[in-house]
């Protein structure tokens, strides 16, 4: 059980930042905007979060700083693509380049510093309680409970986020309007929906998520900041959104699937199976491409919001 639990924990820690960032981008893309700048926002979030946590000694402040950093960068992106109807692909790339550089500037002063990683919750060992000692399988049950309720807070946030976005998009009126805007911005506009404002809020939300995911990397995943620590996760998050056909629950499973695949190849490398380490490392990227192809084959509608990426310039 312990070994299995250990592996599952590595899967969870690999998945959580991807899941959070991808959930944010899912909302953004559902509203019709493509934000390629996740990698940059995540990097800056990681740096700001770590810096703030070290300077104030408070994890909470660190997380808040990371979220604000992500939102600030995404606001710049929003100005470009919503206010000026700039090309979304190039603007997102600019955000990535700038964000990675910015993270380097901010994090430079903290290289080598470490802090305590955000601890996981501690769930009491029920098998140690006198009253329950004789319940059959109590040791196993206690172990499962400790596992399920003993993760770090980000994990629960990510799950709540997934559930919340599922409810928002599927059951709330605001979510319906957002989906409509992403589906057909012209129809939405002619019905009086606030296209630009909704997209702006969505972009900010996406930025907050990307920042939060970055905070996870520098506060939980590793208890320090280092250059390039995002390692392409922002791009994987983008692919995950496509792979999940823009559906939150599918994204949840897809993210965990991908996290497991990543961990698997790490363990395979460690196990010296004779397959070159680089090939195993390349596996997630190749798998992403194959997944994208499978998603497109034989489907007339892939599920993408129809106005994704199209700048909105309403007719006079």
């Amino acid at each position, binding site marked *: 059980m312990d070994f299995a639990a250990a592996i599952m924990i590595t899967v969870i820690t690999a998945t959580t930042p991807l899941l959070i960032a991808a959930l944010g981008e899912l909302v953004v893309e559902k509203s019709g905007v493509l934000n390629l700048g996740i990698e940059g926002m995540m990097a800056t979030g990681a740096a700001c979060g770590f810096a703030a946590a070290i300077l104030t000694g408070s994890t909470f402040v660190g997380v808040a700083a990371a979220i604000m950093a992500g939102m600030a960068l995404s606001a710049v992106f929003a100005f470009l693509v919503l206010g000026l109807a700039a090309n979304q692909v190039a603007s997102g790339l600019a955000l990535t380049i700038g964000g990675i550089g910015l993270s380097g500037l901010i994090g430079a002063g903290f290289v080598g510093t470490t802090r305590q990683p955000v601890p996981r919750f501690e769930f009491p060992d029920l098998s140690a309680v006198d009253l329950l000692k004789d319940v059959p399988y109590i040791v196993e049950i206690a172990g499962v409970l400790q596992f399920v309720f003993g993760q770090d807070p980000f994990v629960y946030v990510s799950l709540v986020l997934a559930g919340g976005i599922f409810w928002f998009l599927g059951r709330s*009126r605001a979510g*319906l*309007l957002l*989906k*409509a805007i992403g*589906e*057909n911005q*012209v*129809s*939405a506009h*002619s*019905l*009086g*929906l606030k296209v630009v404002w909704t997209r702006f809020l969505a972009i900010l939300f996406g930025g907050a998520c990307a920042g939060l995911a970055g905070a996870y990397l520098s506060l939980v995943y590793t208890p320090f900041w280092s250059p390039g620590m995002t390692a392409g996760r922002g791009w994987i998050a983008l692919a995950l959104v496509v792979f999940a056909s823009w559906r939150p629950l599918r994204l949840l499973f897809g993210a965990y699937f991908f996290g497991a695949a990543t961990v698997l190849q790490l363990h395979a490398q460690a196990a010296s199976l004779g397959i070159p380490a680089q090939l195993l490392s390349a596996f997630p990227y190749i798998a992403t491409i194959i997944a994208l192809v499978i998603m497109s084959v034989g489907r007339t*509608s892939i*599920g993408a919001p*129809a106005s994704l990426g199209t700048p909105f310039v309403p007719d006079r």
Partner: protein
Amino acid sequence: MVEGLVGEPLVRLHKIVKRFGPVLANDRIDLEVREGEIHALLGENGAGKSTLVKILDGLLQPTDGEILWQGNQVTLESPVAAAALGIGMVFQHFSLFEQMTVAENIAVSLPPDDSLHDLNVRIAAVGKRYGLALQPNRPVWTLSAGEKQRIEIVRALLREPKLLILDEPTSVLTPQEAETLFGTLRTLAEGGCALLYITHRLDEVKQLCSRATILRGGKVVAACDPREETVENLASLMVGSDVAGLRTATERKVGQMRFEMKNVSMRGEGSHGRALKNVSLGVRSRQILGIAGVAGNGQSELFAVMSGEWPVMKDQSILIDGQPVGHLGIEERRGRGAAFVPEERLGHAAVPRMSLSDNVVLSRQRTRSVVKDGLISRAGARALANSISVAFGVRKGRADPPASTLSGGNLQKFVVGREILRGPTLLIINQPTWGVDAGAAATIRQSLIDLALRGTGIIIISQDLDEIFAVSDMIAVIHDGTLSEPVGVTETNRDAIGLLMTGGKGAKHAA
């Protein structure tokens, strides 16, 4: 229809004027609709109906004139303001979200203070009351055009309007769906709702409406009770048979068959695409075939199939000079002597931000002075652009400006001239003078006639009956994707053609 249920005047438009720059779209229009009345608004394309109705729906502000609602003067600053008064509108082009369900599409259009409580129940109730059956959970892309229209109507009805405006509602419906719609409208009228029904279809007007206002050239030319008029009368009021309809036959001797289409059927593209059903036509050298029709009846699809932008047929169904070309693309067809002018000047016939000399290259790749061995000669392209401009009187301000800076008329002259100067043996042109000033229009039409005299076979697709009659030798009408039998211009008149355009007697009905 039951008499006596028509009540007080609900809305009155008094001397409404709407100007767009130099264009007078609405010229002192008076219109009055009463409660419980089904009132028809008739007129050709460009008569000013859409503008008037947009004013009523709050999308446009009148340049002059008043709107009186229940006797009080009001300003309608936006569709929201109009909806608040109780004005609902069902547009010809739907504002729908194809991937979402019926219920979601309706929910999206309801005002924020609507709690969406029991929406499915309300949709079912409205559907039952007015005969608009809808399944709330079906995705919209699976629905037929008629069912999609029901969504738009239910959207309007859920807000309990006092005045419901419908813009060309039956243009997307089968005859059976149209009957269902009429039932709905009659029920609404009996309930006291006023209805403003915009259409070309005169037989429907006679079936449904107790009052009709007819627009032509931005003015009201008649207001009558359609039940007391013949369809022929109404048609002539609409298209204006005071203009000379008959034309003396030209002295052109018609030559060999240039272009033929045999029984071509095509599925329409996209949600507004109009299918083509068994279209056959032919044009000979020195002959001009005019295809008349109201916009949206399959003209774009027909053009795409004839030009080769949709090359799909591998058999003998499209022939140029007797050779099958159905499988060939547009450039290969040009190689066989054909030339094409699409409807959309900017974006299709020309690239807006590119210069005229660049735009010349689009369809003149086989002209050796312009393109040789894959290389473009700037000097050659400029020279050709200049000759076109000189020959067709294109006023352009600078030597080689971007296409978007030219006025509509001048750009159209350029785009038409680009093809005519090639000396093609076949020219197919869609809306030759739409949105073009009178002078440019005259130049273009004359050049088409001259081209025909030199041996070319020409097919013109146009919404403008004046133009069709001024230029064509043979006339056919496209309606709902089907083409009527071509008749010689001397054997028909505007009334008969106008009738065919509105789906009247003589037109082939959709199978």
